[in-house]
């Protein structure tokens, strides 16, 4: 019995931590089904007394959340796909080509990570205004086209691909792009999945840039729409909870479904110095 005591303690602790991670989210879901006003009663209830879908109905019928969902989906998907392409190409170049200035360029690029994103927002906004893409999907996508961190991850990963495979493909007459497509990309699959998931999540959850670039309500993404909701209906707690659930559900499901992949990606990609 003595030997299982540490085991019980450890797993008990893990369980408690799991509860703290889950409770806010579970309560959010629970409250979204409560009757209006029920969630702010005292003592705070854990479960709805008479579950109702009325808040979800209100979100789509009265408050246009379906449109925000579509906007979020389009923007997040576009950024994920394009940035995956751009980042993987650049990561491959840094990893597998020796060209003059390579290391210097890489280091300079990496130092850009220290610059807070908010620095760029004002001038970028003014620049995009002159391009005429304020309040468009294109404007929302532009900051996400390439990511320093993404390029860094792919370079790390691609660096471990044996040169012999690349040479072999070249000897078979493959063009550089074919090498990229048939050798590098398949072998990078774990990290690509990881990067794709994190890019999608980051873009979907992004709040500040869509807030700035989208002036028309019909172009709002979910987080912006939700913040709007908060400003207006500060007393309608159940409605806001429903809005929150809608905002987090897609990414949640995506991560649950693709768990295996991104965990593998992070493990294999790891952090090798």
């Amino acid at each position, binding site marked *: 019995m003595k030997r299982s005591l540490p085991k019980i303690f450890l797993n008990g602790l893990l369980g408690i931590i799991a509860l703290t991670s889950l409770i806010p989210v579970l309560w959010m879901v629970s409250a979204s089904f409560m009757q209006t006003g029920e969630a702010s009663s005292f003592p705070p209830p854990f479960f709805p007394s008479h579950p109702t879908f009325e808040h979800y109905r209100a979100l789509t019928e009265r408050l246009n959340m379906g449109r925000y969902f579509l906007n979020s989906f389009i923007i997040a998907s576009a950024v994920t796909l394009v940035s995956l392409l751009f980042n993987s190409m650049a990561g491959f170049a840094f990893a597998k080509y020796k060209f003059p200035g390579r290391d210097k360029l890489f280091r300079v690029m990496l130092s850009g990570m220290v610059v807070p994103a908010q620095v760029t927002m004002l001038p970028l906004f003014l620049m995009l205004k002159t391009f005429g893409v304020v309040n468009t999907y294109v404007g929302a996508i532009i900051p996400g*086209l390439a990511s320093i961190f993404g390029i860094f991850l792919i370079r790390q990963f691609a660096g471990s691909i044996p040169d012999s495979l690349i040479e072999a493909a070249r000897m078979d007459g493959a063009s550089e792009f074919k090498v990229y497509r048939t050798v590098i990309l398949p072998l990078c699959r774990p990290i690509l999945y990881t990067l794709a998931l994190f890019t999608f999540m980051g873009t979907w959850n992004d709040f500040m840039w869509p807030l700035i670039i989208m002036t028309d309500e019909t172009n709002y993404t979910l987080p912006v729409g939700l913040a709007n909701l908060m400003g207006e209906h500060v007393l309608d707690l159940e409605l806001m909870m429903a809005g*929150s659930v809608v905002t987090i559900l897609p*990414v949640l499901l995506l991560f649950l479904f693709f768990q295996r992949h991104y965990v593998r990606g992070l493990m294999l990609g790891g952090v090798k110095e």
Partner: protein
Amino acid sequence: MSTKFENKTTAAWFFLAPAMAALALFFVVPVLSALIMSFTDFDIYALGNLDVVRFMGFKNYSRIFETPLFWTALKNTMYFVIIGGPLSVAASLGTALMLNSKLAKFKSFFRTVYFLPVVTSLIAVAVVWRYLYHPAHGLLNYALSWFGVAPIDWLGNPDLAMPAIIIMAVWKNFGYNMLIFIAGLQNIPDDLYEAAHMDGASTWSQFKDITLPMLTPTTVFVVMITIIGYFQLFAEPYVMTQGGPLNATMSIVLLMYEQGFRWWNMGFAAAIAFVLFAVILIFSLIQMAIQRRMQ
């Protein structure tokens, strides 16, 4: 698509071009513009009539240091970084160690659950947490009341607001670094532990002499990205407290946002952004110097 290049350099630039172009145009250029703007007094009057923009030299920067609110914001941001940073890293490391232990059960379940808060949108969880922190109806005070603790005004008390935000930030983020630590831990070869065990080393000394040193690169990486991220504290106070109460949660980026986007003192706001950049840079250099010293 046939891309046979003349030499490797051309090939490399073909692959680099899209990302580098995007970064150059949409990152480097704005940063440089912001730098230039920080030397002017571009504001709402300038928006209406470009002729009234004045060149300020370094006056914006000196004004920042003469603004008490900036020092408050700096203090608050440092508070968040110095307390929240290590707390977050410790939580990530702790849970990673626990999940890596042979005694732990249901590992993938726990790992998934701990990662859950990471994928949620901050706005969405801010709604819940604002309510959890409610002095009268919140779940947190309700739970504390079972232990006989009187209601606490988390977000309304200037001394408690930042800790409240730190707790929420740690809750939200620890799962991310936890995964990175797990990866790092799993990269430590098992035979090292076996050899130590055969030599009679205790669990604690195994941890001290094998785990920690082998984990150092990972730890350095995690600490660095956490700290850089935490210096950019914005969304949490923006959503939860709007910088209050009594500016207790005003962060540097929030100050920059208010000056820039609310009042359109854009030259001044740009200067604030670069001061933040300098602060982060100094911190990063200090950390790298310490790391080099330790090696």
